[in-house]
């Protein structure tokens, strides 16, 4: 995997306005010194804070009832138990700490589902940095608990109303803020996307997931897994989980994308009713890097869709795109229905309410466990508390095995 060149095969690079290039070069230098070379003990401090503040290591749990259901060994990496309820803290804490080492005075971030914004707000409060988070209007409406959590941690949440008001627009808006305030501000990108060094740097902050998981699975199962699977939106938990397994040729890697309501696209309206970028996207340039994107034939970026706000993005990390091209990672997808079923199944069988993002991986496991081997490692990238209102609404219209009787729940007053 490349760290220094900024290129992953044909993908990656730095496609940003000139005003940002000096900041990107400054960040590249800081990434190499502090993250790769551990200058001033940066990585030691990062690991220490991940342990004490973040609660690492997170457990690897054998899911007994899922294992029984599929007659195989299913291990869950419990990133939902990380402080804040998602893997996002690994990256946010790393970047905010790096910004402090770089003497930056202000943090900006964008967020889709709100988990990255929440993690960034927490890291900023922890490290004493002012924080502004851009969030699409539509996402604010569907992720209200996270918005409140960000405010509780002292962050300003700025609504983005242009376009459809989701993550894509929020990223563009944050880049504009960065262009205006680049001299004293660091932009904490929330995934393995954007211009170099972000894709490599975010992967390295998330790599701790696979460092732990690889050791834990060897200890518990006595060997490496046959298959490793997790959800893929931008791809940060995906690359974090895959990083240490990429060289293990006997381990199959599955990136489970959001199939949304359909894999067909509406070219005329410019809408892809899915976020399956690796499965259906094409080579393009978006938000600072060359990667796979959902676009029409002219190169205009499409509106994406997923029941899970955290996967609802028209791009994907360039390294992941390259790994799929090289057939090291298999890109698959699960639709909204399958994800909701996975959500209820894990809640009922294991007492774990997963994020709707992770529920896509659980949906894939249900239908494909026979092909995944005897030892399966699956990442629960976050917990599902943030998704309860969405799940209530979406379950209402569907007949889902194992789901509670939503009609009765609604009739008795729901959340009121």
């Amino acid at each position, binding site marked *: 995997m490349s760290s220094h060149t900024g290129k992953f095969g044909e993908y990656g690079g730095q496609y940003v306005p000139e005003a940002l290039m000096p900041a990107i070069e400054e960040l590249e230098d800081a990434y190499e010194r502090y993250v790769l070379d551990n200058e001033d003990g940066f990585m030691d401090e990062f690991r220490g804070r991940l342990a004490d503040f973040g609660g690492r290591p997170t457990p690897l749990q054998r899911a007994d009832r899922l294992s029984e259901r599929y007659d195989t060994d299913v291990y869950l990496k419990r990133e939902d138990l990380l402080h804040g309820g998602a893997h996002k803290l690994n990256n946010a804490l790393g970047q905010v700490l790096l910004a402090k080492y770089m003497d930056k005075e202000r943090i900006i971030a964008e967020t889709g589902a709100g988990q990255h914004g929440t993690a960034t707000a927490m890291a900023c409060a922890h490290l004493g940095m002012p924080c502004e988070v851009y969030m699409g209007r539509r996402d604010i409406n569907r992720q209200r608990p996270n918005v409140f959590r960000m405010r509780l941690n002292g962050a300003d949440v700025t609504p983005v109303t242009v376009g459809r008001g989701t993550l894509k627009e929020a990223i563009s808006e944050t880049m504009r803020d960065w*262009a205006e305030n680049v001299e004293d501000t660091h932009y904490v990108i929330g995934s393995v996307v954007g211009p170099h060094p972000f894709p490599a740097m975010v992967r390295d902050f998330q790599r701790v997931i696979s460092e732990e998981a690889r050791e834990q699975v060897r200890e518990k199962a006595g060997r490496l897994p046959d298959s490793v699977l997790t959800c893929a939106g931008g791809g940060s938990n995906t690359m974090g989980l895959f990083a240490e397994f990429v060289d293990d040729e006997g381990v199959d890697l599955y990136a489970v994308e959001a199939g949304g309501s359909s894999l067909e696209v509406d070219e005329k309206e410019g809408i892809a009713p899915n976020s399956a970028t690796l499965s259906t996207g094409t080579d393009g340039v978006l938000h600072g890097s060359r990667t796979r994107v959902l*676009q029409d034939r002219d190169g205009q970026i499409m509106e994406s869709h997923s029941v899970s706000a955290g996967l609802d993005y028209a791009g994907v990390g360039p390294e992941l795109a390259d790994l799929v091209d090289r057939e090291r990672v298999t890109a698959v997808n699960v639709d909204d229905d399958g994800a909701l079923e996975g959500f209820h199944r894990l809640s009922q069988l294991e007492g774990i309410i997963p994020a709707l993002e992770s529920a896509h991986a659980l949906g894939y496991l249900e239908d494909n466990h026979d092909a995944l081997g005897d030892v399966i490692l699956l990442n629960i990238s976050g917990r599902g508390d943030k998704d309860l209102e969405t799940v209530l609404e979406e379950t209402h219209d569907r007949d889902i095995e194992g789901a509670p009787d939503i009609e009765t729940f609604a009739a008795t007053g729901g959340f009121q």
Partner: protein
Amino acid sequence: MSSISEAFADGPAFIPYLAAGDPDYESSLAYVEALERGGADVIELGLPFSEPIAEGPTIQSAIVRSLEAGMTPTRFFEFVADLDVDVPLVCMTYYNLIAQFGEDGERGPEAFVRRAAAVGIDGFVVPDLPAEEAGPLREACDEYGCELVFIVAPTTRGDRLERIMSQVSGYVYVQARLGTTGARTSVSDQTEESLARIADWDVPKAVGFGISTGDHAQRVIEAGADGVIVGSALVDIVAQGAERDDPAVTVASKLEGKARELKEGALRGASTADGRPHPERT
């Protein structure tokens, strides 16, 4: 001498920008033509991209209006062919549209520049394409005799200046201040510092970002620029016209008047600057 270089030969160049097809194809043709009547020496035409990360709210809204009215790269080239203007035209767009243009098997900069040159485009500005990634587009521009304009920002220093200098042609777009495009009420002090850093470059310097009045244009030329680039102040006139549903002829007339004000400001700046020491003219 290329047509863009010629535009700078006889005094300060006034370079207006409009998003092609904003708010609709026919009106936009009339608006661009009005800019030439108002004194434009070069015209920058925006080919709208759905994620314009370098633009502020004014031009972003123009891009949305144009896209909603059906603008596409193919339609853009028809638009250029339909324009009745004699001044050089520069296409301002984002790299993904260039990378995707053409038929399968030959998509990319070569196909894009070939088509653009055929309809009369003389140069390109691509805000999300830094010099490091510009190789394929630079080659295509050389092949078809087009200029490739790069932006120098207030933050650009050292090696980056060298890299840009080795790639730029036509004119260098000097970004007057940090941030995104958008009209402002004053001209930034960063302008003079930026111009001083590139004073010895052998290419005309045109200043853009935040210039909205004849007085701003005058100041920028006095500060040593060879040209002024104005976008948002003109796009504002188009936006107001669209909002109020004014007849295209009324909006075109306002654009022509605004263009004249800006051009005259630039000319005033040149005559004032001629009377005192100046990095370009001493």
